[in-house]
């Protein structure tokens, strides 16, 4: 595969199951270099699992995942860690190291992978914290932060090594409107200014529409639809319309499979 093709990540014929539950089957997906790609879909469709497969935290039962032309299943542990230095990942819950201060959390990758002086590390860390508006919280511990603040610190940590690929798992959850606006602009600005590739998992259709170049709607273990957010909005598919417009009725049931409501209330289901 061409090392410098437009396709930064290619997923081919992916199959992944957890126990008897098939999460992906025959999944094909391409993430273009330099774009902001959104992965959307109803809860439980495996969006976070897909991120973990792309970063080889999980190994698929079948199929191939190429990152920059390299089949990641063939990498040794050392090569995998080398590749991961090109990734930055924002976890859903922030995943800050609870025994380190905010400053040390952001400095962590620099201390582990570089020989920068303390003075330089301080400059870099404060710059990144300033970008997410939390320079003043540098000395706080993670337990003292709100959920939204923790996620912003995690974002600063994810971008501290200036990665080629930034992965965001639900970056907008728990943010107040001001922080959300700043983060959305930051995601866009970083992607364009640093020429990186961003992958965002989110349910937030409105925010995704303002920031993503391309979106994939995942359902039933496959890509159900793809295109720009505006293309998805105009799509004919019932599933896409239901998801993009937040409708209760459609192919995706709001209720988990259950016995008849009235029968259950009357206790007849246990007779």
């Amino acid at each position: 595969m061409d090392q410098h093709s437009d396709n930064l990540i290619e997923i081919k014929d992916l199959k992944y199951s957890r126990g008897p539950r098939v999460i992906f089957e025959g999944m094909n997906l391409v993430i273009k270099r330099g774009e902001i790609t959104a992965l959307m879909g109803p809860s439980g469709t495996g969006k976070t699992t897909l991120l973990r497969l792309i970063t080889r935290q999980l190994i698929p039962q079948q199929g191939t995942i190429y990152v920059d032309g390299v089949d990641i299943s063939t990498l040794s542990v050392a090569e995998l860690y080398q590749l991961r230095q090109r990734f930055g990942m924002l976890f859903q819950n922030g995943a800050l190291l609870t025994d380190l201060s905010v400053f040390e959390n952001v400095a962590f990758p620099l201390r582990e992978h570089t020989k920068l002086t303390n003075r330089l590390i301080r400059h870099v860390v404060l710059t990144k914290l300033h970008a997410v508006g939390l320079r003043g919280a540098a000395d706080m511990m993670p337990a003292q932060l709100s959920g939204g603040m923790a996620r912003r610190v995690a974002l600063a940590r994810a971008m501290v090594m200036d990665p080629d690929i930034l992965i965001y798992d639900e970056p907008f959850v728990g943010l107040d409107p001001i922080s959300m606006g700043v983060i959305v602009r930051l995601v866009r600005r970083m992607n364009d200014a640093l020429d990186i590739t961003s992958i965002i998992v989110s349910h937030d259709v409105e925010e995704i529409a303002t920031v993503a170049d391309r979106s994939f709607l995942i359902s039933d273990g496959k890509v159900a639809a793809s295109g720009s957010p505006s293309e998805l909005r105009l799509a004919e598919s019932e599933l896409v319309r239901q998801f993009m417009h937040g409708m209760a009725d459609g192919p995706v049931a709001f209720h988990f499979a259950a016995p008849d409501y009235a029968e259950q209330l009357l206790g007849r289901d246990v007779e």
Partner: protein
Amino acid sequence: MKHLIRDMYHTTLEFVRTFGAFQLFFLRLLSHTPRILVTRFDLVVKQVFNSGALSLVIIMISGLFVGGVLGLQGYSNLARFNAEDSIGFFAAFALVKELGPVITALLFAGRAGTALASEIGLMKATDQLSAMEMMAVNPVSRVLVPRFLGGVIAMPFLAAIFSMVGLFGTHLVAVELLSVDVGAFWQQMQMTVDIDDINEGIFKSIVFGVLASHIAVWEGYNAIPTAEGVGRATTRTVVITAIAVLVFDFVITAFML
């Protein structure tokens, strides 16, 4: 009957599988050990503090009272044979060879072992270990190995302190309270306890340190990443360590007699 045999077969198979994984995990810890000792000794020192220094209070209080009980029991039993002056060597033998290493290991499992297992389990449950992996930092070498080594290094020192404070407790009760001759107390001890006895105690405490730390780190790392899973891992750490320490104590004592 058929079901019983099938269940026993599956249980045995699962036990063998887990035991094998436990051994491989130990080799994995050992393989990272030299590099961590050379390049990140600061992390090990921090964990020696966490597992060792923070366990000192419980170790010293327990040692003092265990020594005191030895003084009371030793005196009342030895007095039947007019041998109460031998209480010094009686207490020293008991503390240095058996009680020091064993009780220290059991207390270590309850204080430091549970802290290690729950900390690592919670790090797993809150994606901190995954985040490290994503930052290209191996959590086994960055998190587990320093904690394992911290426990291994701390245990012999804790056992030695337990024995010393225990002897002080025996001295307080036997000499100060029950008026055993102070010269006889220490002289009998010096004459009968030799370096092999002390080496046996040190050897046991090192083995127990490896066992207790390995079990705590293993249980934390393999905990189901939920509140209930971490709780279970913490409980298992204490139970398995206690059993393992007592079994190994018997085996080592049998070989060293």
